[in-house]
């Protein structure tokens, strides 16, 4: 078995845009994810960052098989998962789980915490015999740092951070190998974000989990990730080790994102160059020709509109999808 637990190749997800009341016509496609490839190694955390609407969450949905993919392949431990059905898909659910973004809507308000965390065992009764479940639920609550005696409480009796812990406990229940974290901390206070991220880090060490960690906050991603992929309009524009990407970014988009990270040291403030991007992300229904970033890029030239830059190593040690890739340190 290879070192990679998940291998994604040319994954495509297009949402058709339909018009008409009775007879619907397809007038175009939202190219939410458009040819994404990456590997996830065992026990590794892959961070995925990008602006709103760049396809991060859609990527998570497709990986979780919550949305059907339009094309490409996703292999889990060497097995193709995009075509799985019935019991094979149910079995896959035990290996890949998701932690959702908003802890206020991801827990059913009419179920007790015990029922929420115990639901995975009801759906997969082979994992835990009936008499054992209560104990298992309490163990899980304990693992994520909640009081095991609170199993009879309802979600609204907990704070945002505690609710997210409940969501994590639910994802952990089946002992998955991979957890997809879809912006798990972006709805939380900054102080709580750190707690939840440290919890995720501890759990990774304890259970040997692999994470796909989606976020739009680069500093959050850096804290947890071994490798980071930067997405723009449905494509990965740069991917590399955490240090390589943060200290030697080569894609202009990555550089622009990094230049927006707040500097904690007041002495250094104002000394670095801030790259301001003009305009908005173009519509994914009709993305720009060639390089998708060219409409907002200060380096854009004729070739960018004609040729799509491939994701490959040009300078430095990690791949980047820019014709004019060059190292530029933006983090002081």
């Amino acid at each position, binding site marked *: 078995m290879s070192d990679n637990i998940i291998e994604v190749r040319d994954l495509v997800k297009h949402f058709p845009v339909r018009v008409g009341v009775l007879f619907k016509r397809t007038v175009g496609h939202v190219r939410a994810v458009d040819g994404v490839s990456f590997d996830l190694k065992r026990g590794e955390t892959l961070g995925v960052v990008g602006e709103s609407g760049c396809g991060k969450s859609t990527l998570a949905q497709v990986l979780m098989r919550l949305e059907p993919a339009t094309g490409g392949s996703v292999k889990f431990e060497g097995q193709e998962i995009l075509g799985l059905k019935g019991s094979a898909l149910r079995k896959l659910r035990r290996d890949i789980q*998701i932690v959702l973004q*908003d802890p206020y809507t991801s827990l059913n308000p009419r179920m007790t915490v015990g029922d929420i965390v115990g639901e995975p065992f009801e759906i997969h009764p082979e994992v835990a015999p009936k008499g054992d479940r209560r104990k298992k639920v309490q163990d899980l609550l304990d693992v994520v740092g909640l009081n095991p005696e609170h*199993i009879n409480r309802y979600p609204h009796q907990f704070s945002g951070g505690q609710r997210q812990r409940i969501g994590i406990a639910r994802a952990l229940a089946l002992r998955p190998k991979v957890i997809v974290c879809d912006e798990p901390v972006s709805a939380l206070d900054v102080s709580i974000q750190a707690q939840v991220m440290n919890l995720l880090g501890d759990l990774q060490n304890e259970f040997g989990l692999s994470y796909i960690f989606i976020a739009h906050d680069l500093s959050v991603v850096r804290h947890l990730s071994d490798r980071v992929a930067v997405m723009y309009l449905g494509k990965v524009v740069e991917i590399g080790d955490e240090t390589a990407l943060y200290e030697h970014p080569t894609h202009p988009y990555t550089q622009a994102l990094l230049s927006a990270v707040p500097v904690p040291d007041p002495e250094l403030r104002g000394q670095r160059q801030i790259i301001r991007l003009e305009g908005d992300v173009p519509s994914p229904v009709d993305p720009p020709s060639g390089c998708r970033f060219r409409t907002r890029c200060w380096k854009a030239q004729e070739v960018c509109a004609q040729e799509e830059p491939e994701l490959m190593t040009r300078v430095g040690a990690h791949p980047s999808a820019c014709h004019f890739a060059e190292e530029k340190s933006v983090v002081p």
Partner: protein
Amino acid sequence: MTDPSTAATGAAVTSTAGEFVTGAEHIETKAGKPRSLASDAWYDLRRRPLFIVSAALILLVLLMAAWPSLFTSVDPTYADLGRSRDAPSAEAWFGYDNQGADIFARVIYGARASIIVGVVSTILTVLIGGALGLLAGFYGGWIDGLMSRIADVFFGLPFVLGAIIILSSFRAAGSTSATEIMFLVILSISVLSWPVCMRIMRSAAITAKQQDYVKAARALGASSTRIILRHMLPNALAPVMVYATIALGAFIGIEATLSFLGIGLRAPVVSWGVMIADSRDVIRVAPHTLLFPAAFLTATVLAFVMLGDAVREALDPKMR
């Protein structure tokens, strides 16, 4: 499962978590026993004055419907024109109606038909409309389209016209069987009012379906049945329950309308609707003939509305 490092962070967090107790009722008396939404709701209901009052009222009306002879020994069909429209007295508490029959006895005996028509047609309406609305909301697409169009057809029928057609075409000629008429009245009410309930349920189900917890359940591998019954139904039930409690009163009133038009229940069967319809001609000279059946109807409907309200609140953990 617990390793020392996480156990330590766990203890640190739980010390603050303990402060999130929101009310006295949440201090667990039996901390060990797992509870469900239903048992929590029942525990909460028994402590609600609104529930106790409304449940007692409904119980009383049900007793009247089941054993009317417990409450009066007067024959409701015995009429003496000599005491027509007599006012309430010690002998006849609620007075006499236009035909000279004891109104108190008639109100007691009328409970049965009114309650059966109201409750059964509400249950049928909610079951048909709720189930179809839930399925339409969950599956969407052509299933939703088909069901919504069928509902539109029934919704477009004027109620009284539809009821006249059903009652006059299905009723055996010359039949005066109370059960048969009651059955047809219930049938026409449910057949003509389920679309309203379906639309309410459908929109609530669509809202519930888009919630993240449904996504999480699907990611866990939950079946459609499980998602519909465990996640969508409990969260989509509240608006339907509000509709049902209001509809119950309206249905008892509709039964009266049909009686008034001469196609619903009729003498010798007694119902509150029949009594209200009968009193319309004499309302100015003998208002008590309207007052007493109408008061019973109002009190019953109010009791059901209050019960629905109490149950709805008890089923919502946030309102406890």
